[in-house]
Structures are given as structure tokens and as C-alpha cells.
């Protein structure tokens, strides 16, 4: 084993990603620096059960050790550490991936312009600027790229609309609000390869004729905000005359909805705007605006530098290119797995994810964040594709997968879906503003009835006296708090929210609620109903 000898300085790579730091990477880095090593801080490779990870520069390349703690310096440097992994990219978790967007994430120093340039950085931009803007739009169209935020709208068509709008103030806005639980791809990319996003934004601006761009990043991502601001400062001369600024979110999940995000940048309450007008025609400050998710924009440099066909050749059905899937929750190999569309849910959870970390059987998987449907193992055959998931009554969303073992109570998860919607509702439209709060109350009654607690409802004005009779149709005693009635009320409420709400927050909350109810009726105290999955097509 030819570990680095003591005399010349050993070069080690340690991640500064927020997840790595949360696992102690800073202490490890300090220990190696104190031991005289040349420590390079990188983004995260994206497999969190081997973090904190240390990669040591050797003649044979970078040898990884992980997880490692602060006092393992010597055993790592002399190569004797028990968790020696060899070349990290050869680990099965990484080897089977197709990292088009995340190629440099975890490899380079995120804010080093040299590292980025040395690995083909800015080629996409230079190429784009050598072509006519329409050609750049055509390339994005040819790549088949669709919105990675969750809507799946063809990115090229959105850019075409803004490109065609009359010249004048136009904007490019990056939606980095990533509020879905189980998703962290945007965060990892911004912290690991910020120039990729910046290059994508500059290409987009050139393609549509925008002069200024905003990256709206949620305030829960302080590391991503700082890294992006530093990267923008360093690369300003490269993307000039296009200028870019980061805007911090302020703790409102609803600002992940594109028009609420625009309202927020404009200094207003994050309330959802009615459409039309579409942001591509009347967006930020009323001007034509391209608004795309981090991953959609970060895919563009590859499309330009490697060619649209290279991107389009990968995929399944109408979902072209790769999707950086995020495997999370109670899972053994949680992390970022960029792969072409078409891979099945089961492969992702069981083969790549390795099943639950707790060792107990997988009972349910939520795909697409808090507004995504829950799927039981019976649905693991589903290929990862926008249309397939929609047909199955669910959605891909931002491609976050949250794994639950058999200790999960699906009624509580349905209740949580309503609670989350109530906490984050912007309050503008009635189905969501009032419906979410009533949804929590209905779930409380179902759970209480299920657990045979007698649900005592406060009667209005007490007892069966004169007032109760006088109220007649509205007296509390008329309300049936039994499971059938409350379950039917839950379905009716879900219907009102799904088809009545102004945006996807209220509109998609029924996905987790109804999928939990349909696939796991036993958790809802339903008398032996069959658990046929809910078939209605998503909007």
C-alpha cells in the first residue's frame, strides 16, 4: 500500500457541503490541516453514509476513506484505515450513474475558476455566444429537457416564448427554493458546482435577450447562499454584460411556486398570481421572464458543450435526459443518484438505496416531496417517467424519494400533509386557506375514531337545550363523526382542493392524502376495503 510518505505535504479532499459539515467534516478537515496536509474543500460526492469522506491524492489517483472521524488522520494517511474505499467513482453507487449535471460536484473546489475551466467549464457559454440566440433555444428544444422543478414543462418552449417577446427588460430567474422534504439536489449543486448554474443562467440570458438574472434561494440553505454569492462575485467578468444576484427566501414554502417567487423578489407577500398572464410574457416586474429550477438550468451547459443529442439519447418516452434522483428518509444508501429516466422505483429504493437503514421492511415510499403520492412496494415496477407516474396517480416532482419502514402510520402522514399545507398556505384561495385547516380536523376525527377514542365534539352552547334545537340544521349533534362519514368528507374536501385550488400547494396536497387512504386503508380504520390505487389523472 503506497500511502503518502511523511516528508512532502499530502493533498487531501474533504467536502464542505452542508450535509458533510452536519456530519463533522469541518472537525476532520481541521485535524488533517493541523497534521500539515494540504486540505482542498470540495462539494459532496453525494453518498452520505460514507461521510465524512476524505480522499487522499496518490500516484494511482484519489483514494477515498469514509466515514472518518477527526482522530483517524494517521491511519488514513498511512492507508491502514478500516474504511478504505479505493477510488470513490468506482463504488457501485457512483459507477452506475450518468452524471451529466453533477459531473464535477464533489470533485473540484467549488469556487475555483481554474478547476472549473480545466474541466470544460464555460465551453457551453462560449459556444452559445458564438451562435445566434435562436440556435441556442433550438438546442435546448432538441435536448428534450423538461422542467426539473416538478411541472415537467418543456424548457425550450418556455425560452422560445421569452425569446420572441419584444426586446426590452427581460429577466432570467432561477427557482432555488427547493422546499420539498427529501430533496437536496439544488443545494448540493449550488454548494458543489456553482459555476455550472451560473453558466446555465448566462446561456439562458443570452438565448432570450435578458440583461439581469436572480437566483432565489431558500433561507434554510445558508451554505448555498454564501457559495453562490462568492461564485457570482468571482465570475462576474466572465458572464458580463449579464449580471446576476442572489435573493434570499424568508421561510415560505409557497415561494417555490413560480409566481409567488416573483412576488417575493418584487418585495411583496408571496401570494400566488392568477394565470394568465404567464411569466414568460408578464413575469418579474411585469416583464417577460424565464423562470426555471436549478437542475433545469444546470443541465444546459452540458447540452451546449456536449450537444443536444448526447442529452436526448438518454431517457424514457417523452422524458429525455437524466434526472438527479435524491434517495432519502429511512434508507441505507441515501444520496444523489443522477440517472436517465426509465429506471424503476424499486431499483432506486432497493438495489441502489439498499432498502431501509433501520433494517425493517420498506412499507411506503413518498415520491415528489410533501405534495407527492405514497406508493407501496407493489408499485415498485413504476419506471421513473413524468407520464408513467402521472398515470399511477402520483408525480415525480423534484425527484425526491422518501423511504418509510413498517413503523409508519399512514393516517398520521396524511394528517401531516394537511398540516404542512395549512402551515405553508399563502392564504389567498379558499380551498387551500380553509380546506387545509379543516383537513387536519377531519384527520383528527378519523384517527380518534380509528383508535376508538370517543370523539367528543364541543357542542355549541351546551347540551340539547333550546339553542341546540333552534340551530337545527347546524347543531353539532347533526355532524356525523363516524369513520365512513369523515372519510367521505375527506374525499370531498380533497376533490375541492385538487380541482378548486389556485396553485399546486392546495391542488396537490390530496396526492399524499388520497394515496395514503387508498393504498393503506387499514391505517384509516376502514373495514377491509381493497387498496386499489387511486386512478384519477393528475392535472
Amino acid at each position, binding site marked *: 500500500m503506497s500511502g503518502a510518505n511523511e516528508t512532502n505535504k499530502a493533498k487531501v479532499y474533504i467536502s464542505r457541503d*452542508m*450535509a458533510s*459539515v*452536519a*456530519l463533522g467534516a469541518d472537525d476532520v478537515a481541521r485535524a488533517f490541516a493541523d497534521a500539515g496536509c494540504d486540505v482542498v474543500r470540495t462539494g459532496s460526492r453525494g453518498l*452520505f*453514509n460514507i*461521510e465524512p469522506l476524505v480522499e487522499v491524492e496518490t500516484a494511482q489517483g484519489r483514494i477515498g476513506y469514509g466515514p472518518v472521524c477527526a482522530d483517524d488522520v494517521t491511519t488514513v494517511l498511512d492507508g491502514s484505515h478500516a474504511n478504505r474505499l479505493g477510488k470513490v467513482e468506482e463504488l457501485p453507487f457512483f459507477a452506475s450513474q450518468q452524471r451529466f449535471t453533477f459531473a464535477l460536484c464533489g470533485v473540484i473546489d467549488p469556487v475555483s475558476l481554474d478547476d472549473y475551466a480545466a474541466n470544460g467549464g464555460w465551453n457551453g457559454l462560449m459556444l452559445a455566444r458564438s451562435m445566434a440566440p435562436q440556435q441556442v433555444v433550438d438546442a435546448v428544444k432538441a435536448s428534450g429537457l423538461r422542467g426539473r422543478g416538478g411541472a415537467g414543462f418543456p424548457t425550450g418552449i418556455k425560452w422560445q416564448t421569452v425569446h420572441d417577446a419584444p426586446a426590452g427588460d427581460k429577466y432570467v430567474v432561477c427557482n432555488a427554493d*427547493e*422546499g*420539498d*422534504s*427529501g*430533496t*437536496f439536489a*439544488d*443545494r448540493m449543486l449550488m454548494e458543489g458546482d456553482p459555476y455550472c448554474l451560473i453558466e446555465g443562467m448566462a446561456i439562458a440570458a443570452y438565448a432570450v435577450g435578458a440583461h439581469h438574472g436572480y437566483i432565489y434561494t431558500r*433561507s*434554510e*440553505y*445558508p451554505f448555498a447562499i454564501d457559495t453562490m454569492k462568492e461564485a457570482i462575485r468571482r465570475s462576474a467578468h466572465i458572464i458580463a454584460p449579464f449580471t446576476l444576484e442572489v*435573493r*434570499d*427566501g*424568508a*421561510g*415560505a*414554502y409557497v415561494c417555490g411556486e413560480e409566481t409567488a417567487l416573483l412576488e*417575493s*423578489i*418584487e*418585495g*411583496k*407577500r*408571496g401570494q400566488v398570481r392568477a394565470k394568465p398572464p404567464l411569466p414568460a410574457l408578464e413575469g418579474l*416586474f411585469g416583464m417577460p421572464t424565464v423562470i426555471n429550477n436549478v437542475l433545469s438550468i444546470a443541465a444546459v451547459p452540458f447540452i451546449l458543450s456536449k450537444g443536444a443529442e448526447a442529452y436526448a439519447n438518454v431517457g424514457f418516452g417523452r422524458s429525455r435526459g437524466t434526472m438527479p434522483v*435524491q*434517495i*432519502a*428518509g*429511512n*434508507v441505507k444508501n*441515501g*444520496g444523489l443518484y443522477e440517472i436517465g429516466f426509465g429506471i424503476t422505483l424499486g431499483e432506486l429504493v432497493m438495489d441502489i438505496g439498499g432498502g431501509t*437503514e433501520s433494517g425493517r421492511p420498506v412499507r411506503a415510499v*413518498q415520491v415528489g416531496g*410533501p405534495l407527492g403520492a405514497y406508493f407501496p412496494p407493489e408499485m415498485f415496477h413504476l419506471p421513473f417517467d413524468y407520464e408513467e407516474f402521472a398515470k399511477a396517480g402520483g408525480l415525480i416532482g423534484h425527484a*425526491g424519494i*422518501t*423511504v*418509510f*419502514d413498517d413503523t*409508519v402510520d399512514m393516517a398520521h*402522514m396524511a394528517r*401531516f400533509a394537511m398540516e*404542512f399545507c395549512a*402551515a*405553508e398556505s*399563502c392564504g389567498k384561495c379558499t380551498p387551500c386557506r380553509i380546506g387545509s385547516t379543516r383537513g387536519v380536523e377531519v384527520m383528527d376525527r378519523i384517527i380518534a375514531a380509528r383508535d376508538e377514542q370517543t370523539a367528543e365534539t364541543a357542542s355549541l352552547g351546551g347540551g340539547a337545550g333550546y339553542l341546540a334545537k333552534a340551530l337545527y340544521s347546524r347543531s353539532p349533534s347533526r355532524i356525523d363523526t363516524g369513520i365512513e362519514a369523515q372519510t367521505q368528507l375527506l374525499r370531498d374536501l380533497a376533490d375541492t382542493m385538487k380541482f378548486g385550488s389556485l396553485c399546486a400547494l392546495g391542488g396537490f396536497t390530496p396526492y399524499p392524502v388520497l394515496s395514503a387512504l387508498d393504498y393503506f386503508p387499514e391505517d384509516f380504520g376502514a373495514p377491509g376495503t381493497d387498496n386499489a390505487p387511486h386512478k384519477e389523472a393528475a392535472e
Partner: protein
Amino acid sequence: MDEVIEAWTTRYGATRDQLLPMLHAIQEEAGYVDDALVPVIAKALNISRADVHGVITFYHDFRRTPPGKHMVKICRAESCQSRGGAKIEAAAAQRLGVAMGETRADGQISLEAVYCLGLCATGPNAMVDGRPISRVDEKVLDRIAQEVAA
């Protein structure tokens, strides 16, 4: 604090879209946005007090009352729940002696729920005075409790 606002508008301009960045800067400086500042902000950006008040009360991050000396945030979202988040949330409230969403009477600690920190494979997660902490268990909670006691 008026100088912070003054400096902000001279540096970034006095347009309405500067409201959120300015509120973040004020909160960075003072920990919260005092109601008495609302008229000053409104005048600086030439919008109405209602415009400013509506924004402050909409966004969860902006506080109208002083925060605790230490800010402890526990993630309540689905991924952390799948890894035992609910138990940790209850334990933290009990261990730190403050209810979720409140600031302890002595002003030492504020405990808040947060819906996802983006560390979804290594929950249950917490953020203590801006520092992320993963795989939170009883032992980690003890360490946090000591740290925020000072």
C-alpha cells in the same frame, strides 16, 4: 437602526424590491424587526406601512419580537419523520425546557420547527445558531443543551 436602513438604500437603491433584503439585513443586525421601524422602512422605500407590515407578517423568518440568545431549529418534514424526527422534536422541547415555536421565559433559547434543511438522508436534523447537526439523538441533544445553556 435608521442608519442601517439609510445605508442600505444608498447602496442598493430605494425600490420596493429591496424590502426583503433590507428586512434580512435588519434582522441580521438586531435579531428582529421592531414595529417602530416599519414607518422608517416604508418611508425609505416609498411604500406604505401596510405594505411593509403585510410582508413582515407573511414570511416565517421575520420576527417582530426579540429571539432567544440561542436559536435551535428541529426539522419536522417527512424524511426526518421517517428517521424518528417526531420523537426527537418532543425530546428537544422537554430537554431544553421550551415549547416548540416559543422563546424560553429567560430569553436564553428559541425552539422552532423548520420544514426541511436539505439533509434528508442523515436525519433527524437540527440547526443550532446557524450550524447544521445531523443524526440527532438523545446524546446529541445533551450536547446541544449544554452548548445553548451558556
